[in-house]
């Protein structure tokens, strides 16, 4: 007998975006308040896991056709690249840069290269978590 999980699926579709935007908020808030790449990545992965629970692995793979192993590699390269960038300007490895910019809507904002490093962490965390869950889920 096929169970009817229309409520589950409908809620998941809505809640996915709430969780995802919360993850983005956590990610960007990391410099001044609790949060950052690790927690943001985990929350994003949990949003995707919610979709997997509500639908199934195949469906989620078709709507989010992401190769998570490549995502880990890209995250690592981004993190290493941010850290290594300062080597080319004669500063020690891992020296970060920041400055204040007047952005159109946000106004005066400080942009810091640590956020790029965090983005690398974020991608690695999402990639690793999803790889683990997908591999175990696909295992017969």
């Amino acid at each position, binding site marked *: 007998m096929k169970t009817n999980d229309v409520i589950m699926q409908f809620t998941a579709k809505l809640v996915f975006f709430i969780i995802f935007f919360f993850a983005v908020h956590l990610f960007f808030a990391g410099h001044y308040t609790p949060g950052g790449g690790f927690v943001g990545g985990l929350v994003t992965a949990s949003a995707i896991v919610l979709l997997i629970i509500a639908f199934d692995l195949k469906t989620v793979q078709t709507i989010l056709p992401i190769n998570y192993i*490549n995502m*880990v*590699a890209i995250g690592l390269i981004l993190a*290493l690249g941010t850290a290594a960038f300062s080597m080319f300007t004669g*500063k*020690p*490895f891992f*020296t*970060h840069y920041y400055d204040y910019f007047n952005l159109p809507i946000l106004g005066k904002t400080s942009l810091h290269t640590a956020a790029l490093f965090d983005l690398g962490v974020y991608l690695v965390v999402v990639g690793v978590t999803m790889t683990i869950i997908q591999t175990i889920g696909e295992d017969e």
Partner: protein
Amino acid sequence: MSNFLLLPIIIPFFFAMLLLFGQKNIAYQRITTLLGLVISIICAIGLVSNVYMDGPQTVTLGNWPAPFGITMMGDMVASVLMLTTLVISLFIVWYGFGSIGKEREQFFYYPGIMFIITGVNGAFTTGDIFNLFVFFEVLLMASYLLIVLGGEKAQLRESIKYILVNVISSALFVVAVAYLYSVVGTLSMADISLKIAEINQPGIITVIAVLFLLVFGMKAAIFPLYFWLPSAYSAPPIPVLALFGALLTKVGVYAITRTYTLFFTHDLSYTHELLLILAVVTIIAGCIGALAHFDVKQIIIYNIIIAVGVILFGVAQMNEVALQGAFVYLIHDMIIKAALFMLIGIVIYVTGTSNLRKMGGLIQTYPTLGWFFLIAGFGLVGVPPLSGFVGKLLIIQGGFIAGNTWSTLVVLASSIIVLLSVMRIFIYAFWGEQGQLSTDVQKRKYNRMFIPTMLLVILSIFYGIGAEWLNPFMSDAAKILMDPSIYTDAVMKGGE
């Protein structure tokens, strides 16, 4: 400030990331790995010559002043060890082309190797005790992958033991670092050394010293803590085993050497006496194991334990001669263990068994293999022109200078046992009547395995013959081990 010393860590790391793409394309995987290793070797050679010219190189990450940021410290010890690691890995990777098998190559074997090199090189270079922990974890995680990759029954069984032991010892490492931090309030190794010298090693620091010995001893396989090693190392395929045997325990030995020469130097009569006793018992335990087995892998694996004992015996003497000996022997042992594992890998390949009793008469069919094995065996024991001689000579000399006559005689006697154990392989496998021979030995595959092995043995011969030429590098390393102030000055003043 010099970022150059980071290159032997960053380049393998970067190439490991590149290798995560193109998982199924074996040609791409192999070429990228070789390219990465060759570039890192060139950088490591440059680093050794830099250190030789200008003294220790330091860089404190993120442009922070010295005790507050993570310092990376490339002194002679670290840079020579990094160079050795990279060279050995190059030969092992080359050897692996012939023997590791397509399934493993397509499933992150090469990224695993590159990550393990990142971890090993990082552990050699770091100047921060917690960063050392992180690099230990990097190399251990990669080694978990390599030990289980392939999924044979023995690998699955042994990887559980291996992971369990290492998780426990890593947890102890964290506890030890927490204790140390609560006493001295700093994590930078140079700063810890200064702070401990200020408070003159009270009892609690001695306790922490023993705790560190427990932690690193578990990684390095010293006497009561080596129980996991013989069975765990017999599970993975030969190239992985060669990599583990040459690198992993040596990182533990290096960590003991570093902590016992840099931090805990004020209560020698307790800490170094304990290290001495454990080293001697380790040698004896290794000797017993090496004689007891009729399995070629096990014999060489127990020889790792003997060598760990010999090196730590040198460290425990705390005089410059013995420390130089320990360092020379450490490098020798990394090279020769890799070569021996690669040789017995070929022996196992051509006979199809690792049981000595079933082998015999290989010298008729594979004469060059036989003679190279003999040379490597003599090198391991320390027959004069070969590589093991100078290191052991210095260690023994240092032992007599320190007045530890009886224990030094044990070290000397252990050489005879080592000789006996390797000669037993030679006599059983190469002499006598024709024993078991594998039926499907392909000449091409054999050559692919034999050429890197041969080159590595030749390299070890040069290491022995060129001892005089290498002496300035080695005595440089011994000086920094003997005198912590060179290390602390380089870090604390280099950061200004």
